[in-house]
């Protein structure tokens, strides 16, 4: 199974060293292969041990795997016409696929790992490969941002490892060598000797992850990177890399929840409120699609973390899925919208003619509305249930009014974002001048793929599946 999962990536890696002209058309096809193992994994009985206790796939990882592979396929689809929107050298494709393969290997490891160590290794690999994916765009800005990303990523990674070691330390007396693997930790989290040490470790790890997801205080670096790199890369960032991080957060916070749910909730709550406070006002100011979307991506990540920490597993997973499909879709469409020059929001959605154009127009408009959780977008339901979970915790808490107030504050920040997106939507659709714009088949195909995946999320079957995960 493990080979099956890694194989397509290896093929890609090898092919990418082949001459560009030949590989160029083979590579996207090979990238399609990553879907099949994901599907296979999805339908295997859970928990399914892939490699002893080190790699064990459960429902959560299968779900994340499936979502990520769909997103990756969509992105690679759109990648093949990158050259028609921005002028690039051919070898860029090769480099992209080379590091995409590495990235995919790392990602797979971190998603299906049942072991803190392997999870961390996967994460590290993914991070390092993304650095080079940024550098595929050989502009000065991109190089600068890549270097910044290097620093931030390295620090985040080392913090995560530091935390992992502390967690290991705190569980060592209890489990001995077993203290590395998640399931064991989950089992014995209740009778841990030194919750304090664990919580310190957890907080350091979480800080690392939050930094990597672009939470407070590092709200801008992600946006800068995604601005600097090519739009498919940005799409990968927001759609896939984030998922590698968030699944780690899911796993660690499950343990923390058993150790002390209230501490976890308050920690995450304060952190996310700070994040969303900053992000909402940054969004309110931003005049650029790319930054706008990546900031709202940060916001959604924060919401996911918050929902998860407040026990709304279903809401968190639904929101995660919706985010994973919507954000890359929007990033791809951004690349197309910006083909007539960056920072032009007014009238960006006008002038798309023909069937492809109409479909693109329609889908992009829908995605924009979906992202501000207007029904019937999945985000609507996820936010509904997520806030429900939070209110429940608030009702159990002794400072009820305080909590309700905090939740209202959160909603106020969200409504600022809502306002901004409404403005953007309207000015894209109704303002500005109409000029001829082109969109290519494969891009529309990618968007359609995302749209269908979103619809699939909305089916009662998937709801029921997500409920079963918790």
């Amino acid at each position: 199974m493990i080979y099956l999962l890694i194989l397509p990536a290896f093929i890609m890696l090898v092919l990418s060293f082949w001459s560009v002209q030949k590989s160029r058309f083979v590579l996207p096809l090979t990238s399609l292969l990553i879907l099949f193992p994901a599907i296979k994994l999805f339908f295997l009985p859970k928990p399914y041990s892939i490699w002893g206790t080190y790699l064990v796939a459960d429902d959560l990882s299968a779900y994340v795997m499936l979502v990520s592979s769909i997103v990756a396929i969509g992105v690679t689809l759109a990648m093949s016409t990158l050259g028609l929107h921005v002028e690039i050298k051919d070898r860029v494709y090769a480099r992209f696929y080379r590091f995409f393969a590495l990235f995919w290997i790392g990602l797979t490891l971190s998603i299906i790992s049942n072991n803190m160590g392997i999870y961390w290794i996967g994460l590290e690999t993914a991070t390092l490969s993304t650095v080079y994916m940024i550098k595929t765009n050989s502009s000065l800005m991109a190089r600068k941002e890549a270097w910044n990303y290097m620093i931030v990523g390295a620090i985040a990674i080392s913090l995560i490892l530091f935390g992992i070691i502390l967690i290991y330390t705190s569980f060592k007396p209890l489990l001995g060598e077993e203290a590395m693997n998640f399931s064991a930790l989950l089992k014995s989290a209740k009778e841990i000797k030194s919750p304090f040490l664990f919580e310190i470790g957890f907080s350091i790890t979480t800080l690392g992850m939050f930094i990597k997801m672009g939470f407070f205080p590092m709200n801008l670096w992600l946006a800068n990177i995604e601005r600097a790199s090519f739009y498919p890369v940005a799409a990968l960032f927001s759609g896939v890399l984030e998922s590698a991080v968030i699944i780690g957060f899911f796993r660690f916070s499950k343990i923390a929840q058993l150790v002390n749910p209230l501490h976890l909730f308050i920690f995450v709550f304060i952190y996310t409120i700070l994040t969303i406070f900053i992000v909402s006002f940054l969004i309110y100011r931003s005049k650029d699609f790319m930054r706008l979307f990546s900031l709202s991506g940060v916001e959604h990540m924060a919401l996911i973390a918050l929902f998860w920490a407040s026990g709304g597993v279903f809401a968190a997973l639904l929101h995660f899925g919706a985010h994973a499909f919507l954000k890359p879709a929007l990033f791809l469409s951004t690349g197309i919208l910006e083909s007539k020059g960056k920072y032009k929001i007014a009238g960006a959605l006008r002038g798309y003619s023909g069937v492809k154009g109409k479909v693109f127009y329609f889908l992009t408009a829908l995605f924009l509305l979906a992202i501000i959780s207007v029904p019937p977008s999945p985000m609507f339901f996820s936010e509904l249930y997520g806030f429900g979970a939070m209110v429940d915790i608030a009702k159990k808490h002794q400072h009820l009014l305080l909590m309700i107030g905090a939740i209202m504050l959160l909603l106020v920040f969200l409504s600022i974002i809502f306002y901004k997106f409404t403005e953007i939507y309207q000015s894209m659709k109704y303002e500005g001048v109409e000029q001829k714009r082109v969109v290519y088949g494969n891009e529309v195909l990618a968007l359609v793929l995302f749209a269908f995946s979103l619809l699939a999320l909305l089916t009662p079957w998937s709801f029921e599946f997500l409920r079963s995960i918790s």
Partner: protein
Amino acid sequence: MTSFLIGLFLATLITALFTMRLYRLILWYSLNSLSLALLAITIGFHIGDNSMIVSGFFTLLLKAIFIPYILKRISLRFSLSRQIEPNIPVYYSIMLIPALLVFTFYLAEPITNMLSSNANYVAISISSLFLSLLLMIEHKNIAPKIIGFLSIENSLFLLGTIATNGMPMLIELGIFFDLLMAIVVINLLFKQEEEVKE
């Protein structure tokens, strides 16, 4: 013996914070790694954990000798400025570092009664994490930043070694971390080259 080495580790790190010359910084770093390696080896002998001894020797070779040497070569090759001014005034550092140490001990105090092994070790490794972050913060030039990274990694290794006496996967993790560091270094070199070209 253990405590002495740990003290040495911390001392070298702190002195590294105050140095203003590149080569001396590199020297302090290698001493720092050396003490770490010796620490690993002694503890390894103490609890009879061979993997730890191995990793100790590995550290000795790689970090105490190889990386400092490479760094020096690089700095010669690209003629990096040997004069490195910390952009945080010294009196601030004097205020800050003891505060950090005190805080970390205060932080680790509740661990003592929960854990078999010595809580101060945890405290020291956390503080060394902070100190190496500080090292990264206080320098603008690239070489000290690299050294900051490396000493973050050292403090990780310290934690792995002393707080959890004997660890299975973490050795490998340490190696992966060295890989990360190596890649960082190479990346930086390329960056340098590019900037040299321009």
